[in-house]
């Protein structure tokens, strides 16, 4: 089950739909460069429910065809420069969403349902620009009561980083249960972890409660500090200095290319 990051990156074929977690939930930054080296283009990204550094770098590297997201930003470092430039240039297709709509789409896939209904959205311009969302009158009401149906989001691949996996492929995700939702919805799930533990995470009720079963996990690879410069809950904090450094560098395409070529791949 344990293999290296380049082997994992091979799963990312051109044109796949790739789901990535929000910055505080466990971003596998360690996979970013292997994916860029692998140079699979026309990726359709699904940010669950927002994107950050990894999304910006994949866009900057020219690999991204479309982004479905509720937001893209670099946290305290502000806007995401390569995302913003790509929007301005029309270089990527946008599927602007709102957080619970992303969750609803994944939930539909988790449940094997074609859609989930969702309140809100009516009167928002988000809805006008989403031809895949549909408004119907609530069939359980006496008439009227429009409601939006969000179609199932079925990513080809989910990639995230977690504190630990066991040698049976179970992954500890703690209370970051959107990671489980992503895996349930996805055909393939690739996980990097800080460490592999010997004992099964399912062996005790305490650790099992926060475990994603191996059933949903395609591959696990060890990548110490694999979320860096993002932090990982319970493990290490975000390296804001590094993210600010990226944000400054990536204001221009040249600066971005320079950063990606020369910046360290790992924390100092």
């Amino acid at each position: 089950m344990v293999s290296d990051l380049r082997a994992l990156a091979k799963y990312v074929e051109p044109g796949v739909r790739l789901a990535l977690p929000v910055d505080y939930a466990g971003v596998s930054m360690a996979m970013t460069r292997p994916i860029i080296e692998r140079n699979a283009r026309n990726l359709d990204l699904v940010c669950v429910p927002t994107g950050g550094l990894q999304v910006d770098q994949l866009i900057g590297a020219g690999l991204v065809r479309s982004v479905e997201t509720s937001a893209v930003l670099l946290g305290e470092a502000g806007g995401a420069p390569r995302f913003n430039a790509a929007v301005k240039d029309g270089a990527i297709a946008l599927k602007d969403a709102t957080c619970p709509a992303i969750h609803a789409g994944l939930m539909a896939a988790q449940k094997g349902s074609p859609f989930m209904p969702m309140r809100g959205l009516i009167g928002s311009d988000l809805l006008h620009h989403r031809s895949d969302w549909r408004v119907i009158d609530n069939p359980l009401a006496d008439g009227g009561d429009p409601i939006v149906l969000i179609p199932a989001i079925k990513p080809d691949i989910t990639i995230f980083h977690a504190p630990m996996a066991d040698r049976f492929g179970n992954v500890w995700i703690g209370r970051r249960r959107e990671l489980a939702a992503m895996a349930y919805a996805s055909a393939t799930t690739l996980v990097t972890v800080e460490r592999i533990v010997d004992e099964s995470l399912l062996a005790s009720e305490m650790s099992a409660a926060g475990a994603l079963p191996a059933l949903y996990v395609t591959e696990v690879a060890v990548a110490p500090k694999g979320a860096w410069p993002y932090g990982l809950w319970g493990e290490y904090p975000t390296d804001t200095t590094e993210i600010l450094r990226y944000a400054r560098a990536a204001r221009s395409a040249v600066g971005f290319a320079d950063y990606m070529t020369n910046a360290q791949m790992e924390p100092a």
Partner: protein
Amino acid sequence: MMSEVHPREILICTIAKLLDGVRHVAVGASSPIPAAGAMLLRALRQQAGEKGPRISILGSVEHNFFTNGSAELFDCAGQGRIDAFCLGGGQIDGRGNVNLVGTGDYPQTPVRWPGSFGSAYLYYVVPRVILFREEHTPRALVEKVDFISTPGVSNDGVYRSGGPIALLTSKALFRFDKTRPGFDLQSIHPGHDLAGIKDATGFQFAHESQPEQTALPNPQTLALLRGRVYDEVAETYPDFAAQMRREIERPLSHAS
């Protein structure tokens, strides 16, 4: 007396008043002023021997009550368990519409903001949404937003259990009248006047001929804020708490 109160402390105290009576308020991880307002309300209520509101700080590992991933906030709001929320916006217009996406024509917006986050849901289902934007300029408060991330009002027949109740800026407090719909100027913060508010506001609003001044906190409230509340704020927003404590030591200007 005046010079003793920091302009942001007026904002914090105003938010505490707007939140009075709520059981559960959610605030953003990068929203120290709303968080401080909620914490001040909790401290005041607890001083009065009551329980005070539950405060969920989003994206915070330490100060969150959630254990079901990032969907739980929205589920919780959908269940009617969140009474209040503070929402910002790149543009806010006179009908309470909020734009978090960008300026100009979508999708190739020349200025792109991060995106709509959960606004296109929370704004519909949280009963008391406080629009909060410190910047009070015609650029931020516009006649009509370029993109409606989430609308201020909904047509009859559209499920809507929540929405805006107020707009708070560095200069003034507006109440939202959803029947009109539009904003009513409620009060002007010290150091500002009606003419200046009109110049700085891109949308029309109703107002008294002599608008009230926004109330200042009484000394007890101020003492509570500067003692216990800043201590609590510092746990989640250390930089903000430190900055406030530095600035209240210095003479203050009331310019925005």
